[in-house]
Each structure stands twice: as C-alpha cells, then as structure tokens.
C-alpha cells in the first residue's frame, strides 16, 4: 500500500526515534491536536519510543468527543420523528446523549442510517421526497467542504427535504483557548495534517508568534508523527517558534482554495460549545443566512436544554492536555467503552477509548507515562 507502508517502516521509525532521543535535552510537553494522531500514537505504541524527557498530551481534535451533549440530544429528538431519515457518520451513533444514543433511537423504530458521505444523504433525500432527510454535520475543517457541497447542491437543485444538523468546530480557536489558559502546560503542537490539507497553515502563524509556540503540521503514520515531534523538539531546543510543515506530501501553506471557497459560500464562523471545555467564541461553523432553510435546528425547532455532565468525568481536562486518561480515578472501572461517562471514552479516536483498547492490560505503560 503505497503512501502508507513506507510510513510504517520499522527501520525508519527506529532511526527517527534515535534522532529524537539525541535532539531532546530539556523536558518538553507537546500536544497532538488530532484524535487520529492520538489513536496512531497509542495503537502503534509511539509513546514507548520517545525519550523520557518528552511528554505527549492528547488534544481536543476528536469531533465526536467535543460535540456537546445538548446537540446529541437534539439529534436524538429529530431522529425519533416518524417522517425523518437521520443520516450520520458511523462513529456518532454510539455517543450517548442524556437519554440513550442514536442506536437506541434506531432500535425504537427511528430511521437512522450510517452514510459515508453527506452527498449520499442528499441522494437519499432525492430518492425519498416524502421524507425529511437530515445529515448530522459533525467534524473539523476536514469534513466541512463536503458538508457544504451537499447543502450547496441541495439549494441549487431545489431539494427541499434535506437539512443539516451542524456541529462544525475549528482548530485554531481551540489551540488559542489552550494556550491562553493559566494552567496551560503545552509547549509545542503537532497540528492536524488533514485539517491543514483543507485550510493550509497560514492561520497558525499568528498563533505561533503571539504565544511563542512551535506548531508543526503533521501526518498520521508513525514516521510522520516521529518526524513531526523531531521538528517540534528541534524548534524548542533552538528557541524557535515557527509553523513548519512535516506533511508536505499533502499540505501547502494556502490549503485547498476550492474547498475553502465552498466552506465560505455556505458556512459562517459562529460561537460553539465544546463538550468538556465549554463555549469558545468564533470556534465553529454555522449555516449562512441564505442557507438557513437547510438548518435542521430551525426546521425542526428543537430546543436546547443544558445538561449536566457526569461529575466524575475529567474529559475536559484530558481534552486540554491537563490530564491523561489513566490519571482518571474511574478510567476502566466505572467508565468503559460499554458504559462511557464522557465522550472521550466513546469515540474510537477519543483518548480514553484509545488507552482502554490499547493499554488496559499493560500496566507498565501506564506507570511509565505517569513518571513523565
């Protein structure tokens, strides 16, 4: 498999790990933004290969994890309506709202379907004009262009029975929230490669300058992640704070202009609540005024009710890099993928679920992590 296997090569990984060990002289804390990177780090055991002076913390870049429970509740309410066909990416179906998840709505007779693209949902709307087809538009900048395209096409071709339940979030405001916090411990970032494929990385330059923090756009394979860490560590050791691009095989500074155009055509920047973190101003996308007819929240007039999260869950601290999953007292005991207390345990890319799946049985890894 070209473009994958050469980035999972054991020899290349060993060489990079050795270089990283030579480069690190001081103690540093680096956050990978994206849940995909967290998953890869834990799945491949990359954190076992890094020098003890380096601490990796896991960021808020798992869209399933940060979708607020109120929005999940709205999804459940809309999906339960008899005339609605509710479409979602697979991993949202297991996320619990305050009463059940989308799987339980399906079990009670709701028409809930897994789709692989928002355009599949649009095709369903065309095929079933008598039903209301709603797509759960979750994700960071990566999924925004396709979701925007679905709405754009729906408007152009006059598909009236299609709408989006929008929960789009943006990476740069989340980084700024973490950096501006008085408790922040993150000294360098691995930015999410796929987000930057769409958005480029010019947006990160003001952040790197303002907070004196290196940001390295990084891919998702072991070689990518180790190379991203090496670039970040070299900047930290040399006192540089730049935006660098490890993922140059896919990312250019300007990003994908066409994708950005369609996002801007359909969406506008809005404040968003992040599960575990709270509301962050100008941190999400909502439908622009001339596309509001496609907004499922307005169409179905669902009311937001504030929901209290489990007091035992520390997912907010985990998403900000302040705690690691195994530092939670209920991790793996009262909180498991079968009975998650918070969203970081639900999504396969959530830090807690990744630790549970790949680390649960090997106590030595967890204790080594705690020493750092």
């Amino acid at each position, binding site marked *: *498999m070209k473009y994958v296997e050469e980035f*999972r090569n054991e020899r290349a990984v060993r060489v990079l790990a050795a270089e990283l060990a030579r480069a690190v002289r001081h103690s540093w804390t680096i956050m990978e933004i994206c849940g995909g990177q967290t998953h890869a780090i834990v799945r491949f*055991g990359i954190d076992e290969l890094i020098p003890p002076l380096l601490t990796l913390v896991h960021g808020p870049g798992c869209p399933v994890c940060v979708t607020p429970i109120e929005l999940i509740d709205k999804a459940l309410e809309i999906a339960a309506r008899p005339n609605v066909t509710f479409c979602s990416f697979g*991993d949202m179906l*297991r996320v619990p709202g305050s009463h059940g998840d989308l799987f339980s709505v399906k079990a009670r007779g709701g028409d809930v379907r897994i789709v692989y693209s928002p355009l*599949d949902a649009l095709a369903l709307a065309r095929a079933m004009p008598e039903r209301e087809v709603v797509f759960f538009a979750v994700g960071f900048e990566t999924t925004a262009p396709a979701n925007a395209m679905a709405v754009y096409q729906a408007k152009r071709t006059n598909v009236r029975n299609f709408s989006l339940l929008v929960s789009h979030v943006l990476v740069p405001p989340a980084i700024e929230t973490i950096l501006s916090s008085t408790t922040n411990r993150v000294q360098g970032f691995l930015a999410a490669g*796929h987000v930057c494929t769409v958005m480029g990385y010019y947006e990160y330059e003001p952040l790197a300058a303002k907070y004196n923090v290196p940001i390295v756009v990084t891919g998702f394979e072991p070689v990518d992640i180790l190379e991203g860490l090496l670039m970040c560590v070299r900047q930290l050791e040399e006192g540089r704070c730049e935006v660098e691009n490890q993922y140059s095989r896919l990312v250019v500074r300007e990003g994908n202009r066409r994708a950005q155009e369609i996002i801007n055509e359909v969406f506008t920047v809005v404040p968003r609540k992040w599960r575990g973190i709270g509301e962050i101003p100008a941190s999400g996308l909502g439908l622009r005024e001339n596309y509001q007819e496609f907004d499922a929240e307005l169409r179905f007039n669902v009311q937001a009710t504030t929901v209290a999260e489990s007091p035992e869950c520390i997912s907010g601290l985990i998403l900000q890099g302040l705690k690691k999953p195994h530092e939670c007292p209920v991790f793996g005991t009262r909180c498991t993928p079968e009975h998650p207390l918070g969203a970081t345990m639900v999504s396969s890319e959530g830090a807690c679920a990744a630790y549970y799946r*790949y680390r649960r*049985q090997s106590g030595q890894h967890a204790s080594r992590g705690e020493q750092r």
Partner: protein
Amino acid sequence: MIEPFSLACPIPITNYSHVTLAHGGGGRLMHDLIRKMFLSAFGGDNTSPHDGAVLDPPTGARLAFTTDSYVVSPIFFPGGNIGELAIYGTVNDLAMCGARASWLSVGFILEEGLPMERLWQVVRSIAFATQRCGVVVATGDTKVVDRGKGDGVYINTSGIGVIDHDLDIRPECVREGDVILVNGDLGRHGIAVMAKREGLELDVELESDCAPLWEQVKSLIDAGVEVHCLRDLTRGGLSSALNEIAEGSHCRLFVDETKVPVSTAVKSVCELLGLDPLYVACEGRFVAFLPERHADTAIEALRQAGAPSPSVIGIAEKAGETEVILKSCIGTRRPLDMLSGEQLPRIC
C-alpha cells in the same frame, strides 16, 4: 450423492412468482414447495414425510453438534450468498471441533414477497455446497413471515459431525510454545459484504472468502499434526478468536502483525474507512494451534489442501497469563483487545 437437478426453478413462475404466506401455512402450497424445490434439490426421501430424521452414527464415535443462524444482508454478495454461507458456516464450526460434518438441518424463515427465483438460487447454492462438503440435509423446516418482517431469507442450520481420530481439539489443550497458524489472508468476507451492502464503489475486485474448511483440517490430521486448538475467524475476526482462546487456555498469545496476511485490497479499504482488518469477519479462514515442530508439516499440508496462504503468525508465549499481545509493524508491543461493539467507520 444427490440427484442431478434442474437449473430452472421447479415452482412454475406462472403459478407463484413470489413467496406467499401460504407457502408456510402447512397446506398444499407448502408441500409443493418442500417437495418440488427443497427435496428435489437436497435429494431427500420423497415418499415418507416424517417428523424427524433417524440417524445411524458409527458405533462408539464421538459426535460434535452445533447450530448457527444466518441473517446476512444482502443475501447475495460478491463471492457467495446466504445459502452457501449457511452450509459452510456450520460445516466449519464442526471442522473446528475436528469433526467431519455428516448431517445438517436447514430451517428457512422466508419473507412474504421474496421472488421464487431468488429462493431457487439460494436453494441451488445450498445443494451445491452440501454436495461439495459431502454432508446430508437430514431434516428441515419452512416458515413464512409477513412482508417487512424479514430480510428476504433467514436460514438456520444445525449440524452433527463425526470425530474419527483421537485428538482433543479445544482451547484448554493449547500449550505454552504452540505456534499459531492462519490458513489465509484476513477480512475479505467482511469487507466484500459491507461494500455491497453500503453501495461503496471500490476500484478493487473483492470477493468473500466463504469456503468449507474441513478438507484443510483433515489434511492436518492426516499429516499427523498434533492439532491442539482450531477456531474459525468469523464475527470479531482474528482478535476475538484469539482473545477467546487466550481465555480458554489461560495463555498469553503473541502475534506479529507483519506476519498476518492481509490483501492490499482489504488493507486499502480498511485504511479508507478507519477499520482494522484484525477485527473483520472471514468465512473461510481459521487459526490452528500446534507444536512448533509440526509447523512446517502443517503449512505444507494446508497448502496441498488448497489453503490460500498458510502462515505462522505467532506463538502461545506464556501459560498462566490470559492476554493477547500484538507486535506492531513498527516493532512495539501492545494488547490486542476484543472490540466492545461493532467497528464503525470514522468521521475523518
């Protein structure tokens, strides 16, 4: 050996083009369906309908008994259909006990409105598969449910197999130092069925690995391989099978990911959707636990019996510790856990 049968559907299309509730009602229509379609295909006794089959097992033989229900959607998929699956699945479960399947029951739950022609295709596949496995359909049942209450066809098969050797094949018999073999590449069935069900337009040809396994198991036994445990890699894939065996044997199992055969097509689709081939279902793949000194003989025997790519993928590393450890492609070690639910395609 069953009688040769017609390729044309034996229920004249002018009479009933679709299954009706009456086909399960116990009257003449049901008897017509059973006699003309099922009995003619499966080669049963036409003359003396009875409530059950009376079997005549070899004196003193150990028997294995298993049951499984088949609800695959869609019922036709690249590389097979629900009919073959229902036969091979149960034959394979018996083979994993070291038993040659001898008698099967086949129970149909048909949905009203199922085109008779589709049912005939399924029945022909069952006839072909039973013939291939040398197994007799000894008894059966037919029910019809209202339209919308089924998914075309559900099939339950139960099977009785005869064990004609002295090996004791079960997880408890796994010994420290046993090698873990797999007979071929993983994940074809799960990905082929999912691609068809979800309408994924893949640029690769991917067919289910659905196949009978007894001949391969027999080849091991005939070659004198001291087989300790066998398990087919159905739901939950390799990882579930190994975790179950680790639990049964109280052994730490070690698997080297780079040794596990997975086709480029399956790997690519899994990468795209965020799935892990180690958790994807197969219908013609199994793991075998056996002493290391028998590994070469076992691989040669499996190859002769038509196994696609028999490979040693790991070892029963240490008795007394119940876990499965995976050495990743970059050389690190981590637990290979069972999934808590189904694998779900990721957002991005």
